[in-house]
């Protein structure tokens, strides 16, 4: 009785939400399940052969997994720091704020492949702009090879942050504007310094916005593909690029092998999501206790 009453009262909402959930299940959840199954198949029969292949030195999957985790961490730190700094700056009421906000938003309109090409000119191995400028400023004495070795992580992370920080900035700026001035005034009356106000007022109020921004970005970050493909090519492979590489090689069984790589990526993302949800619940409970 009670259930039918609730359904009747909220009929419109129920009718409205279902197409969305069904569509997402059809175009997203179903293919995921099929992708996982295909990764365990060789010529139509189930086996773990694909995964054994990936463990061999030809693919050295462990190395690609580490690369992926490093790039996600590094890129998130850089883009989040940039976004927080810019949003704090743009939250001040100075003349020209709208103008600077327009400039900062520009990279958001630039396609990833385009930004990758732009950064190819900066992070080319020798002779190009990155090295040229650092040499002229006297910061380095000989050219750096930006696309090989550990420094390639930094090149990819900086190029990626350039394109992605405006979105985080917008979310954080939206969050900053929801904090009432009275909170700061009260803190100031209690004798809190600017830094204390930042730690005890700004960060807690901003918390839900930080969480949503990080989840949105981390998700895409694990999938990083077209940018490293163009910027560093095969010098530094991530799970996404490895999967793409294998799939587009068009050799026999390559699609299944690509699915297996993608499944490993999926498992890592799921572990991350689980940790994330656990941490955000813990933090939210702690927040509501205060």
């Amino acid at each position, binding site marked *: 009785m009670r259930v039918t009453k609730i359904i009747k009262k909220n009929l*419109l*909402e129920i*009718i*409205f939400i279902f*197409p*969305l959930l069904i*569509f*997402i299940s059809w*175009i*997203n959840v179903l293919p995921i399940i099929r*992708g*996982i199954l*295909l990764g365990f198949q060789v010529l139509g029969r189930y086996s773990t052969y694909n995964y054994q292949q990936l463990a061999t030195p030809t693919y050295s999957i462990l190395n690609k997994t580490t690369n992926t985790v490093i790039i996600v961490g590094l890129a998130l730190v850089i883009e989040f720091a*940039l976004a927080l700094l*810019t949003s704090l*700056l743009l939250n001040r009421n*100075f003349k*020209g704020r709208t103008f*600077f*906000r*327009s400039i*900062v*938003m*520009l990279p*958001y*309109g*630039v*396609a*990833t*492949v*385009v930004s990758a*090409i*732009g*950064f190819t*000119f*900066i992070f080319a191995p020798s*002779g190009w*702009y990155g090295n*040229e400028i650092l040499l002229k400023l006297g910061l380095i004495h000989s050219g750096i090879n930006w696309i090989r070795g550990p420094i390639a992580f930094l090149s990819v992370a900086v190029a990626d942050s*350039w394109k992605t920080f405006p979105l985080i900035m917008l979310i954080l*700026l*939206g*969050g900053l504007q*929801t904090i009432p001035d009275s909170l700061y005034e009260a803190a100031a009356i209690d004798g809190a310094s600017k830094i204390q106000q930042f730690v005890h007022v700004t960060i807690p109020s901003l918390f839900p*916005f930080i969480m949503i921004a990080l*989840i949105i970005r981390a*998700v895409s970050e694990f*999938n990083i*593909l*077209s940018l490293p493909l*163009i910027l560093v090519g095969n010098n530094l492979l991530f*799970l996404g690029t490895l*999967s*793409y590489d294998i*799939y587009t090689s068009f050799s026999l069984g390559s*699609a299944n092998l*690509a699915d297996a790589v993608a499944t490993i*990526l*999926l498992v890592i993302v799921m572990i991350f*999501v689980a940790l994330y949800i656990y941490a955000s619940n813990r933090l939210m409970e702690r927040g509501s206790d205060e």
Partner: protein
Amino acid sequence: MNNIGKSLLWYIAMIIVSIFVLFPLYLIMIIALAPSGEIFNSSPVLIPSTITFSRFFLVIAVYDFMPHLILSLETAFLVSGICLLFGIPGAYAISKMPKRLGYSIIIFLFVTQMVPEIVIAVPIARTMLILGLYNTAFGIALAQSSIALPMITYVLVGTFKSVPSRLSESAQIDGASKLQAFYSIDLPLALTGIYVAVILAWLFSWDEFVLASIIAPLHTTLPVLIYYEITRGVGGVQAADAFSIILMIPVIVLVLVLQRYLKSNVFAGALK
């Protein structure tokens, strides 16, 4: 610290951020326009001595540009349409739910998006093959919508939440049905947020690479074509760069013109 010092610091900080943002864009511009001798040497120039537009004509001539441009446009508008079709009702329902349930659904949507595009690209390509949508704009658009929808829904939830609920409540007291209240009151008042959703979906599709390249490898969108040009193109890096500018300019104009709709509060509303 006095006020002049404060604003000086602010302008210096803003200018540093702006240089970081603008420098790569400037490089993309001059590399397409400069003579290759001034770029490909040990100390590349920052200000070219002469400029040439020949690479733009080369790209348009060699790459059968128009059909691909039309495909990209078609796909982007289809993605916007599909996202609104499913996103508007879904977001409206979520905005009326208890906060915790609504928040859980939003997180669920983002979790489905956590799946690497490459994981779903291959199975979706097979589905599209069966449905006869392989190598079509509609096929790409359906796949891209799956990734764009969570973000669009999130923005729309915020928009609907910002419409005061007493408006549609008083309409219902006056005898309007829930559905009537939705399309005659909530929907018109949510238009600004809907514009933002259209821009976001459009931008996402214009940029998307993985799904487009796997679902439509032959007749494909501009980002994928640029990638082909870089890896096996005839005109070299500078031609690929000229191509990028063609892809970039309409979007930058779009972002600047529609700037006033991209207010930061549209990204915050869903969490209020």
